[in-house]
């Protein structure tokens, strides 16, 4: 689990946001509406987003701004979704990506 920052010495208190639920690899988790999927996963301790096609290496967030595309996962059935810039929505189904599919 990675701690969220509730209060920051410069930025102050984190604004209240709407709590929602989503499904990650078959289990239900909580996150905030509109935050990047990757942030919600990180808050729930998920580091590994996918395994690569050629050497089956684990990958996660690297650039966090949608450039490197390392953090892609299967979101609502669509592969290669950049989770670091895709907003979380209620009921989203997020799956670990193996190559470009959901399971090996």
């Amino acid at each position: 689990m990675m701690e969220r920052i509730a209060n920051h010495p410069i930025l102050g208190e984190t604004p209240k946001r709407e709590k929602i639920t989503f499904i990650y690899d078959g289990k239900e988790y909580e996150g905030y509406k509109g935050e990047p999927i990757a942030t919600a996963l990180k808050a729930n301790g998920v580091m590994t987003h996918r395994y690569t096609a050629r050497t089956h290496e684990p990958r996660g967030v690297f650039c966090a701004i949608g450039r490197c595309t390392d953090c892609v996962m299967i979101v609502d059935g669509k592969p290669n979704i950049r989770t670091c810039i895709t907003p979380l929505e209620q009921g989203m189904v997020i799956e670990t990506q193996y190559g470009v599919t959901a399971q090996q």
Partner: protein
Amino acid sequence: MFDIQEKLKEIGPYIEEADDDLLVCRCEEVTKGEIRRALHQGIFTIEEMRRYLRSGMGLCQGQTCGKLVKGIIAKELHVSPVDVYPASSRAPMRPTEMRILAEDGGVCHE
């Protein structure tokens, strides 16, 4: 004019290095050793390297590994990285869904 055989003679045969199994292109999973080996086979440009090994051809379009590949090529060919011609740059700048492109031109914005 650039003499490929001459350059191949100059750089000598491929000699394995300890970190050759290091990944360089994260998207297409290309290692430093693969790039170095290709160089000693006459694959000298970034463009050829992309085509030969797929380095820089992945989702990020070489944004992450571009500079690293350039550095390896420069070192192996004994030239300055500044003299290694960069890859071309083409649309779309970011991966774009086919349906969004396909609908373009048919919509009128007011």
